[in-house]
């Protein structure tokens, strides 16, 4: 079954396990989204974790200011971000993606064992995404955790303060099946039955972002061929198709774009690409 995805106006009213990437410039606006996401999780009997750069007291004060939440503060786990993730030793705040995701999975399973129907985190993550090294590590975390979220009962609202990160926030928001308008014109996320899904529009405006994302995630994709669900990819220009082909060729692998879009098939044929091919979507795949 195709995993739901989309560009959404708010964090309210989404599917039970929606992984949402949310860039924001207004802290108050973020808190409104966080409140909606948490309230929805509480209603569904999810275990809730609230994580941010501030101290525990400051984070709790933020929750206490949320009208729908303040009555249930003691049901929410509040954690400063330096305690939430595991970090690479001596790295100055670069997350250890593998161990951090393992902790997420363990926490989600523990929540289920404790009678919850799921695990839901709200993480304000700019503090661990300020440098290129931090964002590369967070790319790994977001990519791998999304693969887990596609099959396990947990979800997250991952917020990135664009006043701090600027356009670099898109390097991380593009790794979520759900984003807000203007976050990134494309998204790369987990799709069961394939290596990942690619959706949105990819052209010269985000050539560098796409190349960075591909470079950072490629080593995490072990499949050969790398199967890409491109059925909802609205546009891709020839440069990114060539970049995908070069990436696969350099690693002696093949990428398969699964789509019924005639124009993508035509482009790949005209470009004479050797390590990228198009496969139609059928009931069987």
């Amino acid at each position: 079954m195709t995993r739901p995805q989309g560009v959404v106006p708010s964090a309210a009213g989404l599917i039970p396990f929606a992984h949402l990437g949310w860039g924001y410039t207004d802290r108050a606006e973020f808190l409104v989204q966080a409140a909606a996401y948490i309230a929805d999780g509480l209603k569904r009997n999810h275990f809730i974790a609230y994580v941010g750069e501030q101290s525990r007291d400051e984070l709790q004060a933020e929750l206490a200011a949320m009208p729908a939440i303040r009555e249930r503060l003691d049901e929410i786990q509040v954690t400063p971000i330096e305690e939430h993730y595991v970090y690479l030793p001596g790295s100055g705040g670069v997350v250890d993606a593998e161990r951090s995701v393992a902790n997420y999975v363990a926490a989600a399973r523990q929540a289920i064992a404790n009678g919850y129907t799921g695990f839901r985190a709200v993480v304000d993550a700019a503090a661990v995404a300020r440098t290129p090294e931090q964002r590369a590590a967070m790319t790994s975390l977001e990519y791998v955790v999304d693969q887990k979220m596609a099959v396990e009962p947990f979800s997250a609202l991952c917020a990135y303060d664009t006043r701090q990160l600027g356009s670099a926030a898109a390097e991380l928001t593009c790794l979520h099946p759900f984003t807000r308008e203007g976050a990134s014109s494309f998204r790369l996320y987990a799709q069961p039955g394939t290596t990942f899904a690619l959706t949105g529009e990819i052209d010269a405006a985000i050539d560098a972002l796409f190349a960075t994302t591909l470079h950072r995630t490629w080593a995490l994709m072990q499949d050969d061929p790398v199967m890409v669900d491109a059925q909802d990819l609205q546009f891709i220009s020839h440069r990114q198709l060539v970049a995908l082909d070069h990436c696969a060729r350099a690693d002696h692998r093949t990428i398969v774009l699964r789509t019924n879009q005639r124009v993508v098939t035509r482009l790949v044929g005209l470009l004479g690409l050797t390590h990228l091919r198009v496969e139609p979507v059928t009931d069987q795949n």
Partner: protein
Amino acid sequence: MQTMSAHGEGAGFVHSALFYRDQPEYLHGVVPFILDGLRKGEPVLVAVPTDNLALLRDALGDVTAELTMADLCVVGRNPARILGIESAFAAGHAGPVRVVGEPIWPGRTADEYPGCVQHEALVNLAFEGTGASVLCPYDACQLAGDVLADARMTHPLVAQSGSRGSSADYAPDDALARYNQPLPHSPEAVAYVTNTHADLRALRSFAARHAQWLGLSPDGLADLQIIATELATNSLDHTGGACRLALWRHDAHVVCEASDSGRLGDPLAGRRPPAGDAVTGRGLFLVNAMADLVRTHATPTGTTIQVYLRPDPALEVTA
């Protein structure tokens, strides 16, 4: 602009026009050229219109299995695409190749014809220094005298009535200049200006919205969005300035025109397949391959490219 050698010939390169008056003369000129190439072990591409392709198939019988054949009424409707087909064929073989190329036939439209002459002139530049032999048949009975005169300008050698000689009128640069003319516009055109890469999404929305109204099919709209994006990206990347994209209906086509303030310095841009490792430089090549017709007007202060698309491209056949 690159200039061409005095005779359009490099090391062994031969580019001849063949003026024929009937089918026997056609076969008498073309068949020995093909068979001689095969005897020498030279791969042969036959790229001619539908009727003459059938004529050659009948005449050559089993030999056709040794040839690469392309119907130019199908894959060469856009004259700016033909050099890509011929160049790809040559690049696919190590040694000299032979090409029978007949880009001009009596059914060519006035819109298509300038591009055909440009193609013939550029064959000299594209194959200069190679061992290629290119023979271009012209129907001397049905084509106008002006067309044959142009052929004398674009071919260093002309064969007719069983003999071949140098063309005293050979001047391919002059032919290119003669057909580098301002292109017709439409007062009904709607336009969108792309100033930065961030405008490309809005450009595609604009193009799809208006082309749908002009009658383009869903497949045609998808093609147009690629073409509009490639043309605008090309302008932004190579001129640093804006690209004005206009759309209108012209007879049986939707026309997409991109204009910018750049100078198109390489007359072969987009006409040959890009190198295998190149990431850029493929935009115009793709546009030429996807369009029904591409017309260009280049000046030192600006370039205009018009792309003609049929409302329903589902019938297209790729090479």
